[in-house]
């Protein structure tokens, strides 16, 4: 029986959470004309919502409507029509509301994405902090005053919001405000597509946009599938800029569509096969902890996961012993359980891909499984934390992004070899150096071809520190003041007040 209203009630633990199911366009929820979504709880393999209740998907026409609403808002009630201090106030208000509703949002996130509840809560805390960080920037967007020939002209630059932004985000951190926050801060309006695997939490946030008092049309949510909704966004002539986070394969398609349509600006945060390098002087126990966190966090579903650990041969055996112990300490379990550390993979498709990589690792790459290598439990899409050793750096599982809880450990002899191994990848997103030798740290960090180098750490980003990829890991940077540039257009003004000229001009 199809649902006729545009919301449903989800009962999770003891909470009754009302969940909008429509598209959110121009401040209202409405039906979609695209393929609708049945979202699955990956810890169980069953639908999240009551039987017959689906999430509306957006057709090309729906995306059109969203773009129209976003453009209208940008030209009238948003953009530079709203001063920075007011944009700041609204973003702060949104952050406060998300903080207020943290408990419900976390529950929603957990059942939809499979993230254990403690991690969902942490994601929301990060999201709130990111919104607050960018709210502080909203009234601090400054251009330059440029002295030219003083008898002739004065130069100014205006840093203007680019306009309507299409944002396509993945399912691994659906809550993240990395696109919403800077885009809103500088005055852009958004057509926002969550991943089809995790459509729910952003719909709930859309309600908060209304409550916070944002003008209608500033933030629009168009759930849907990549082929239909995502491509409509990437090729829409009325979208000035597309920001995409997801796989490298899809990123390429987005860039091609952008180029072929209106040459819209593109930023991409794509895949990685990041190397965690452990030198002999490292505090080994700490390095083990960071390496384990780096690859197993979020069940390995992180673009910057440290999925290859490169260990100096002198500490290799000891490292393998310790990382095996660490991996085996990881607690998998029901996602609503506060004690659960690792949840399921987000979907059956992802589960199958990762299991296939594990099979390839065993049978084709002939690697040895140090621990794990199997499904965990009988329900849902859980995979044991898995470590491969005795494997070639050129093996498929050593080079292809797996996006699951699968680590490859490779030994090295010299610093040069470590760098060679670390950099022999098409990717360049994250990396790490574990060492107590400051010169080595600096030398290696300078030579790593990656957008982030963690030193004696892994995983944790900061709202004020930029993040993004070298090579096929992406275009552009998010976070920090750098994140603002993605959503700004620089206009140079030449203010001429000099002498009249003759024509033809005598040079």
């Amino acid at each position, binding site marked *: 029986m199809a649902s006729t209203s545009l919301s449903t009630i989800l009962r999770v633990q003891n909470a009754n959470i009302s969940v909008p199911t429509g598209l959110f366009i121009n401040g209202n929820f409405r039906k979609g004309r695209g393929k609708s979504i049945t979202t699955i709880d990956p810890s169980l393999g069953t639908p999240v919502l009551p039987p017959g209740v689906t999430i509306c998907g957006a057709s090309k026409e729906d995306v059109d409507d969203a773009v129209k609403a976003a453009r209208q808002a940008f030209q009238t009630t948003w953009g530079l029509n709203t001063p*920075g*201090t007011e944009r*700041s106030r609204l973003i*702060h208000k949104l952050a406060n509301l998300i903080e207020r509703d943290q408990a419900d949002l976390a529950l929603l996130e957990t059942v939809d994405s499979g993230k254990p509840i403690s991690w969902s809560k942490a994601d929301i805390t990060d999201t709130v*902090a990111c919104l*607050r*960080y960018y*709210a*502080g*920037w*909203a*009234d*601090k967007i*400054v251009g330059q005053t440029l002295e030219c020939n*003083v008898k002739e002209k*004065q130069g100014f630059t205006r840093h203007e919001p680019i306009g309507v932004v299409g944002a396509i985000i993945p399912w691994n951190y659906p809550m993240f405000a990395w696109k919403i926050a800077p885009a809103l801060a500088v005055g852009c309006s958004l057509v926002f597509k969550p991943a089809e695997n995790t459509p729910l939490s952003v719909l709930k946030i859309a309600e908060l946009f209304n409550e916070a008092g944002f003008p209608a049309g500033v933030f629009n949510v168009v759930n849907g599938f990549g082929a239909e909704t995502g491509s409509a966004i990437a090729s829409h002539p009325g979208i000035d800029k597309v920001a995409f986070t997801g796989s490298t394969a899809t990123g390429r398609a987005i860039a091609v569509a952008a180029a072929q349509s209106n040459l819209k600006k593109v930023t991409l945060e794509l895949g990685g096969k990041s190397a965690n390098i452990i030198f002999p002087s490292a505090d080994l126990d700490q390095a083990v902890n960071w390496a384990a966190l780096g690859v197993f966090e979020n069940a390995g579903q992180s673009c910057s996961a440290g999925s290859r650990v490169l260990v100096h041969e002198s500490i290799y055996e000891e490292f393998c012993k310790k990382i095996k112990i660490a991996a085996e300490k990881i607690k998998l379990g029901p996602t609503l359980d506060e004690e659960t550390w690792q949840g399921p993979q987000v979907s059956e498709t992802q589960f199958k891909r990762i299991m296939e990589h594990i099979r390839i690792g065993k049978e084709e790459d002939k690697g040895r499984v140090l621990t794990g290598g199997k499904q965990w439990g009988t329900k849902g899409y859980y995979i044991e934390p898995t470590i491969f050793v005795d494997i070639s750096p050129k093996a498929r599982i050593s080079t292809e992004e797996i996006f699951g809880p699968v680590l490859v450990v490779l030994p090295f002899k010299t610093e040069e070899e470590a760098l060679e191994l670390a950099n022999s990848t098409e990717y360049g997103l994250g990396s790490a150096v574990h060492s107590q030798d*400051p*010169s080595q740290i*600096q*030398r290696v960090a*300078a030579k790593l071809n990656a957008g982030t180098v963690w030193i004696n750490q892994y995983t944790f980003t900061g*709202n*004020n520190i930029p993040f993004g990829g070298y090579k096929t890991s992406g275009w552009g940077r998010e976070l920090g*003041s750098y994140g603002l540039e993605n959503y700004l257009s620089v206009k140079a003004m030449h*203010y001429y*007040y000099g002498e009249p000229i003759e024509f033809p001009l005598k040079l």
Partner: protein
Amino acid sequence: MSVPVANLTFPEGHKLKDISFKTGLFINNQWVNGEGNKTIDTVNPTTGKTIASVAEASAKDVDIAVEAAQKAFDTVWGERVPGHERGRLLFKLADLFDQHADQLASIESLDNGKAFSFARGFDVPEAAACLRYYGGWADKDHGKVIEVNDSKLAFTRHEPIGVVGQIIPWNFPILMFAWKLGPALATGNTIVIKVAETTPLSAFYATQLIAQVLPPGVVNVVTGYGNITGAAISSHMKIEKVAFTGSTLVGRTIMKAAATSNLKTVTLELGGKSPNIIFDDADLEQAAGWATFGLFFNHGQCCCAGSRVFVQEGVYDKFLEILQAKVKAIKVGSPFTADTFQGPQTSQLQYDRIMAHVQSGKEEGAKVLMGGERHGTEGFFIQPTIFTDVKPNMRIVKEEIFGPVVVVSKFKDEDDIVAQANDTMYGLAGALFSRDISRALRVAKRIQAGTVWVNCYNQLHSQVPFGGYKQSGIGRELGEYALANYTNVKAVHVNLSSPAPL
């Protein structure tokens, strides 16, 4: 002996009836008596009567406050607290200012004499906005990584200075309070701030709000006489930076004391005699409105007041006619009357100084076009006053009056007006009115002032820097620029591979 308490009663019909709060020195989030339990009385300038007393800080009290601030810096503030957390607390404080806006504004009007409509509609909300603006900076003042060569890593850190001393004036008490707290706290400093002894009350009320938000010792509020409390701050050996807003005369004293003691860094926001230039192609009606606002706002008690109005010859008579009409329409009265624009001057001393200037104008041969006398018989009210037929060497043209007294002169052309406008030891602000944007930009470049307003006056925003050329001051407040006042830049050179030279 118990700590002094202010018990204020507001005029009949005002939205607040009365209010009580402690007026002890605020140190370590506690209210304490000053040494010897000395107090200073504060007067309501509308009536001339004492309304409260506040604790007076001796040099020893300043010592205690500095110690509290240093301890807080070393343990619960400074680099112990990340920028985003400092920002969050500034936002919280701003929220409290908003929630207590009626109280703060009422106290401000009673103590300073400014109209409640302005205190409530401008001073208090702008103070909150300033705290918010700087709250947003708290986690964004980053250093730089600088390429030199392969053998080293060079970077800068932007560190807080430590305990900073701040001394603020009586003309915008709560707003000046926020202008100082915002950037200093955002960058991680702790504060000993001396508020003006003639208008201490709104800041003392605000200490209750501070106590709800900031750890003890981060902000310490004292008051006292300049030559005792102010001097103790400017010459303190453990304060590494002093920020002063006030007269140029006192600014000199502060700077000398800073240099003589420990060479603490100094920023100064001082006086002005700002030119307001009306070109013949100006919209005269608009220009006259802005010019009236430009001088008479806050009863002329603005460092950046447009106190010298220059009108291009061809439109002089017409402009003066419009100006007179607008000045005549100024409503002088009690701060708590709804349509009051101009309340009393803030103190007997100020009243006397302004009237002395008015007298000198008369004696030196200027023409009193309007005003020139006391207004009413009670309180420190002065009639809005216009002098014409002035000469550049008259006291009323050269000296800052800081009251509702404007001098109006003529000029010929651009070169003439630039010379006249810049013929002052000051350089705080200036304005010009013209519909020719090229002329406006040309002249704006030539005026030696830290702020130039084009077709407006007295426009201040937290995001835009403000400060003086020449003897109007050193350094800039507001905008990103203010952060530099409270930052120590440390360059770190990490040697990676250079062998020792010997």
